[in-house]
């Protein structure tokens, strides 16, 4: 039908006319939405409600239709048309996306920045209609360090500086020393960090694990679980591929058990059920139990990821290793694992990411990491009603951490891909 | 020669800014065998892919079996049913058996009953000598067998023209012969063929005309004997000296 109305069909001859008309209609449609959402002005107020709602779409669609000129010769127009305007479906979708953005973005920016309050010390100073960032400002110490006593916070900072320093130095030393650094990280550092943070020795005040919290707790748990779930997962993966039936089936059972149950039930098990399995009178700190549970949980997923890499390696590698006289362990250490691990970088990174995203769950067993602390802060009588600010802040923090990790793993993947 | 079944007039094609076909003029008569050769990047694959509109030309005219290639999709599907294509990477459908690969198009495009479609398929598979592999799956066949199956698949639509895009370039040397033999048989049976290849032995045996392309242009076009005996352009001479 539309084709019959030939004057509506753009063509190259009257290029400029169609271009002008089309752009005009398109801009009109966009203007309508902008005026409507940001300024509450309705330029088509005379139309009944339903038609009114659709006029911007109609204008925009008409505009895009008129500028959809094939092979116009103007490069910019052609690539624009091919991209967002190749047919009417595409045009409608483009318009919808633009309209949604126009409706959301100004309001979002207002709430986040322009109408928000940043400076102050009480809730009453949040007079704007935007976010009350004073809330975060005031609580930031608690959100990062939990209920750890203020005077001892330097100990947590020291532990992290030690960790980061060690890791960074690992990049700059010769491979021979690198081995020792990794051994130090795996075996010595955990003990150093724990005694530093919990204290009780060397004249440091003892801080019970219940007081640990906030973002620092998120990092502590993530790093510990990260460090240990990898080697455990590796052993499980090797065990699952073993030809010895007892080892094989116990590995399978172990892996499938942890993968089949939700993390929340595992945490309940660790905090409520597990004490029943210990000899009466012994007491293992709740945090330790929880970290062990999370580590074993993630180790099972890590095992499956590593197993995928082991499987993907061509049989020829195993054959070559065996024919050179290498035993099981030597072959795996020198030939198989280095290659398999390169293959599974994305999967390992994913599991690490999932681990970081799983840490908030510990709040159901009473350990207050970042999200838990925000829960506590928002129910404080002096700061009620600021849930949105709290969760947006936490969301931002997690997003930055997770996004950076996934970007880093992508770059790692690229780096190792070119090596092969 | 009989009336021309393919006509390409002043055909030009660009990939973005890069011009890949420059003023191509080509006429192919019924039952003619044409070999297209040239260095890589010369546009030879693009040329034949324009004929069944896997690529679109921006300027010029291409007329296949009386139909002009344009935006009209109904025409395009009609043309594709008349033009068969064999790819360098075989492109057999891995989830279907060889027999199903071949009978798929007759059943769904020509609406042939299944039994008859399978008969046609088996006949073509026999012609390329892999009828015993009919029930197997592409992943279970060697490269040479897969390519012959691909030829059979294209032939099941009973096309008037067969296009070959470097059909042996992805094969191990010992399998090239079996595919070339199948193609020679096809040629002897009277099929119109346009073959992009480096196999000059095949060209000498079967082709009526050889075309040399370089940088998007047809540099030289001559009947086979003359092409190899008396190449006119220096570029042709250079190319031939490198591959013969």
């Amino acid at each position: 039908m539309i084709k019959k109305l030939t004057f509506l069909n753009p063509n190259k001859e009257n290029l400029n006319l169609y271009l002008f008309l089309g752009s005009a209609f398109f801009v009109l449609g966009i203007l309508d939405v902008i005026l409507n959402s940001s300024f509450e002005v309705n330029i088509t107020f005379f139309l009944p409600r339903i038609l009114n709602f659709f006029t911007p779409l109609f204008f925009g669609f008409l505009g895009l239709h008129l500028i959809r000129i094939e092979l116009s010769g103007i490069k910019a127009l052609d690539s624009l048309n091919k991209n967002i305007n190749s047919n009417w479906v595409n045009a409608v979708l483009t318009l919808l996306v633009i309209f949604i953005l126009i409706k959301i973005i100004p309001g979002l920016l207002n709430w986040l920045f322009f109408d928000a309050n940043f400076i102050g010390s009480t809730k009453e100073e949040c007079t704007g209609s935007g976010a009350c960032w004073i809330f975060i400002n005031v609580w930031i110490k608690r959100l990062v360090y939990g209920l750890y006593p203020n005077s001892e916070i330097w100990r947590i900072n020291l532990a992290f500086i030690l960790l980061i320093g060690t890791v960074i130095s690992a990049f700059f030393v010769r491979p021979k020393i690198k081995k020792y650094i990794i051994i130090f990280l795996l075996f010595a550092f955990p003990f150093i960090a724990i005694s530093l943070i919990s204290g009780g020795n060397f004249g440091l005040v003892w801080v019970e694990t219940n007081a640990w919290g906030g973002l620092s707790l998120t990092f502590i748990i993530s790093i510990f679980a990260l460090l240990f779930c990898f080697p455990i997962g590796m052993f499980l993966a090797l065990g699952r591929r073993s030809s010895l039936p007892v080892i094989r089936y116990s590995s399978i059972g172990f892996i499938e058990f942890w993968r089949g149950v939700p993390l929340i039930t595992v945490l309940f098990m660790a905090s409520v059920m597990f004490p029943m399995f210990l000899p009466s009178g012994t007491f293992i700190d709740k945090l330790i139990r929880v970290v062990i549970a999370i580590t074993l949980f993630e180790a099972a997923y890590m095992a499956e990821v590593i197993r995928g890499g082991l499987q993907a390696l061509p049989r020829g590698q195993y054959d070559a290793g065996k024919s050179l006289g290498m035993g099981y362990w030597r072959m795996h250490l020198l030939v198989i694992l280095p290659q398999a691990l390169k293959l599974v970088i994305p999967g390992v990174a994913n599991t690490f990411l999932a681990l970081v995203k799983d840490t908030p769950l510990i709040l159901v067993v009473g350990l207050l990491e970042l999200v838990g602390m925000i829960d506590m802060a928002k129910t404080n009588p002096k700061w009620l009603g600021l849930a949105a600010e709290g969760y947006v802040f936490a969301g931002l923090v997690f997003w930055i951490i997770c996004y950076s990790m996934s970007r880093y793993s992508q770059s790692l993947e690229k780096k190792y891909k070119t090596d092969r | 020669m009989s009336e021309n079944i393919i006509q390409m007039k002043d055909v030009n094609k660009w990939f973005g800014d890069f011009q890949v076909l420059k003023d191509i003029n080509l006429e192919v008569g019924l039952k003619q065998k044409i070999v297209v050769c040239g260095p890589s990047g010369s546009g030879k694959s693009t040329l034949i892919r324009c004929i069944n509109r896997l690529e679109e030309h921006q300027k010029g005219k291409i007329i296949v079996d009386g139909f002009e290639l344009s935006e009209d999709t109904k025409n395009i599907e009609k043309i594709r049913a008349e033009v068969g294509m064999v790819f360098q990477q075989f492109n057999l459908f891995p989830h279907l058996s060889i027999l199903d690969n071949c009978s798929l198009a007759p059943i769904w495009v020509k609406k042939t009953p299944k039994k008859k479609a399978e008969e046609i398929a088996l006949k073509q598979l026999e012609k390329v000598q892999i009828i015993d592999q009919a029930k197997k799956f592409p992943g279970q066949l060697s490269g040479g067998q897969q390519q012959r199956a691909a030829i059979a698949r294209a032939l099941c639509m009973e096309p008037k023209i067969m296009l070959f895009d470097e059909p042996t370039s992805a094969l191990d040397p010992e399998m090239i012969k079996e595919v070339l033999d199948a193609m020679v048989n096809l040629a002897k049976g009277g099929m119109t063929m346009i073959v992009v290849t480096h196999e000059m032995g095949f060209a000498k045996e079967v082709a009526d005309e050889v075309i040399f392309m370089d940088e998007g242009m047809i540099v030289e076009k001559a009947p086979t004997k003359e092409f190899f005996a008396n190449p006119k352009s220096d570029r042709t001479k250079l190319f031939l000296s490198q591959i013969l």
Partner: protein
Amino acid sequence: MKIKNLNFGLGNFLSDSAKFKNYLPQLLTLFVIIFIIGFFAFNAQTNMENRGIVFGFGFLAQEASFDIQFSLIDYDGSHSYARAYLVGLLNTILVASIGIFFATILGVVVGISRLSPNYLIAKFAAVYIEIFRNIPLLLQIFFWYFAALRALPLPKEAISFFDISYLTVKGWYIPRFIWTNFSILFYSLIAAIVAIIFIYTYAKKQQEETGKRIPTLIISTILIILLPLLTFLLGGVSLSFEYPTLIKQSPTIFNFTGGVGIIPELMALALALSLYTATFIAECVRAGIMGVSKGQKEAAASIGLTPGQVLKLVIMPQALRIIIPPTTNQYLNLTKNSSLAAAIAYPDIVLVFAGTAMMQTGRAIEIVSITMLTYLSLSIVISMFMNWYNKKIAIKEK
């Protein structure tokens, strides 16, 4: 003589290093496992004896004496713990099904959009995925529950949809369907489905024999609409609605009665689960579509298949093989993630059984075991189905 033989046999065993290598690690592992299990079991028994708790599942028949806020079946405090477990299980299945449904639709749309040549749409989809994938699910649930849904109006100023459905901070009230003779409608649907199966089989046979194709899709659509419709006209089936109405419970408190109230906990959970899981499904779909090599599309086009036929006969079968296994994994993840309901008090199986019931009876071991077993069984069933499916459709290779 005899002693010599005995030594000889033992010496043989110890020096046969292959057997040694095979059996020793296994024996060791077995010992360690048995030791650990024994250690735990012994301690558990002593501890329970000390506290006077007897291990057993008899408590399941006891009266639960706690209320559950939202239930699909009849339940009140006088029902047994076993029934409470059932209520929790059904609630878990409910939220998981809703989540899977919306996550799939959204995931497919976003996954395909990601591949669109339209820059705006592809970027929009990519941004959506990057945002919702990198924020913990628990945080998203909290955001929807404590921040977004709390901003909904009170019943007095409810957002109304055509005056038959109301969205408020206390829940989403929709009309309740009241059927008469629902069974007749149900049978008609079954009859329609059976007829459709017959039609498809017949059509396939027709195509094999004569090559002609019957418009099965149109016929099926007509059937599935027409037959149930007929039951309304002739079969005595009728549908009436109970609409939610606003009543004044006190000078300042208004509420809706009648109709069905979807509690905000369920809404927040379903929303978060769908938006989060959809990002992963979108990536699965994208990998599937990209995983089919370009040559397949070209080859299919070159033998004359229409774009619709290319999609249906060549692309989708191959793409689905790549898409379905990881997507089923995501469904499983979604079901397990629904256990986060405990954090916002949606009465799923974890909150009802491993939460309230466990606090009341103190039967930690039994209850946590049953809960874990429930999820484990679900995982195993789905895994077995996946393995069967993979074997069945595996593309055969050398």
